[in-house]
């Protein structure tokens, strides 16, 4: 499963190229000159201390924040160029939030149908069938008529994953998908994510679940103060980290 970039380069074009990406809030430079490529089937884990810019990176990638510099090239097109339809681009890049953000006014099923019908213009029947299939896949089929506030956090997050999958995204972004969950429901969400990774879904996962980063991803980025401070295979980052900050971060993690 572990592909490395050299292998890719000779084969195919990346889905996403992040090039000299920067983001500042006022004078606060949160991201500095980030660059990396994402290829089909990559599962990239992003780790790093709180405040290092992990969320901002994901939010810039699907344009919930507007980067202040650099380029985001999706299938060869710079989506930051004027005239590019950001809304359309977003429908190809799914996002799973720490706080789920399921639509509170809609049932579980409708949460997975509404985007298909309104954004992708699928027929309601077709959208419903696909939503049912995906909800079954994440184990939420028995809850199709429930409202988000009637189900647990882990269940909501699984629905949120199904909602994102319903758009047939090329890339799924996860921003600490299990951080807001009760410990006993973390496993069910990680299991779903692991399944997706095994099926070849391209994923960029910000997480403090080190076991997931080590076992499931093919690349790990360690972020520190707005830059990718060290990157490599899970074996490299967890087995043989090169930089002092990475070593310190991982050590702190083992202690807690």
């Amino acid at each position, binding site marked *: 499963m572990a592909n490395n970039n050299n292998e890719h380069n000779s084969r195919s074009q990346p889905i996403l190229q992040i090039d000299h990406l920067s983001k500042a809030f006022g004078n606060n430079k949160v991201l500095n000159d980030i660059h990396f490529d994402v290829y089909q089937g990559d599962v990239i884990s992003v780790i790093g201390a709180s405040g290092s810019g992990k969320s901002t990176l994901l939010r810039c990638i699907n344009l*919930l924040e507007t980067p202040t510099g650099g380029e985001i090239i999706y299938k060869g097109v710079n989506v930051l160029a004027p005239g590019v339809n950001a*809304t359309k681009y977003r429908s190809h890049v799914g996002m799973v939030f720490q706080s789920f953000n399921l639509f509170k006014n809609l049932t579980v099923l409708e949460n997975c149908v509404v985007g298909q019908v309104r954004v992708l213009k699928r027929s309601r029947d077709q959208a419903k069938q696909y939503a*049912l*299939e995906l909800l*079954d896949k994440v184990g939420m089929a028995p809850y199709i008529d429930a409202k988000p506030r009637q189900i647990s956090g882990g269940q909501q997050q699984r629905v949120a994953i199904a909602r*994102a999958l319903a758009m047939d995204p090329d890339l799924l972004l996860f921003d600490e998908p299990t951080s807001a969950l009760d410990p006993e429901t973390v496993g069910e969400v990680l299991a779903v994510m692991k399944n997706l990774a095994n099926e070849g879904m391209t994923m960029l996962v910000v997480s403090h679940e080190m076991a997931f980063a080590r076992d499931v991803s093919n690349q790990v980025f360690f972020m520190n103060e707005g830059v990718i401070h060290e990157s490599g295979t899970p074996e490299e980052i967890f087995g043989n980290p090169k930089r002092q900050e990475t070593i310190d971060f991982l050590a702190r993690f083992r202690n807690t």
Partner: protein
Amino acid sequence: MGKFAQLIQDIEKLWDKFGDVYLRGIRSTLILALVATAIGCLIGFACGVLNTIPYTKKDPLPKRFVLKLIRVVIRIYVEVFRGTPMMLQAVFIFYGLPYVTNLQHRFDSIWVASILVVSINTGAYMAESVRGGIISIDPGQTEGAKAIGMNHFQTMTSVILPQALRNIMPQIGNNFIINVKDTSVMFVIGFPDFFAAHRSASGANYLFFPSATIEMIGYLTVTLVSSFILRRIEKKLEGDASYELAAADQLVMVAGTYRHPGKGEHLAERSKELERDGK
């Protein structure tokens, strides 16, 4: 006690002669209040949506200018209609139209004029409520919608407004009840509402107090019944706190035995089955 008997007698006398006038008045009041509240809500929602179209410094200048202009116009509208009495607004609009058009146009129907005035007035109040309702929705809802590629309009209509509507249900109800009472000022342009019935009935025989008693009872009945119904609707919108799995038990069983078919084959049958058996 003699006074009370007298009052009953006078009321009976009035009712015998003017009962249908009062009833028609109540009917007009209710229709005006309902229609104007509904249109006012639509105006309020339109203003709320236009008012919350996001823009950033990066957007082109014309877009920013138009959006800014929309906000200023709505602001003026809201301030003008909340800051003046509705009775005056009625006179202003009713006589203003023929005046400024040199008698080319005037209101042929007192209904149209009244609905217009009360709707615009209600809209000014609702615009603020809706804006507040939209702003109070968790920003995560908007981000969730954006993340699946919805635009502002789709986000508003599918996600934000339904939630805002639920949140401002009490204010909508409040506005309706205020309209039931305050449409009484429309008599200044000759609208035949419930209060106008009082003026014609008591003007004929000077039974002011008995007629006012009928009016008090009539208005109070309408507003009390309305609040009761509105509270029932609010309760219903709230829904249950927990989800019963009972109806879906058969699904749990199906889920285990079912092998992933291609999109739209066996699933089609299955979802039809669900529609038949479920719910």
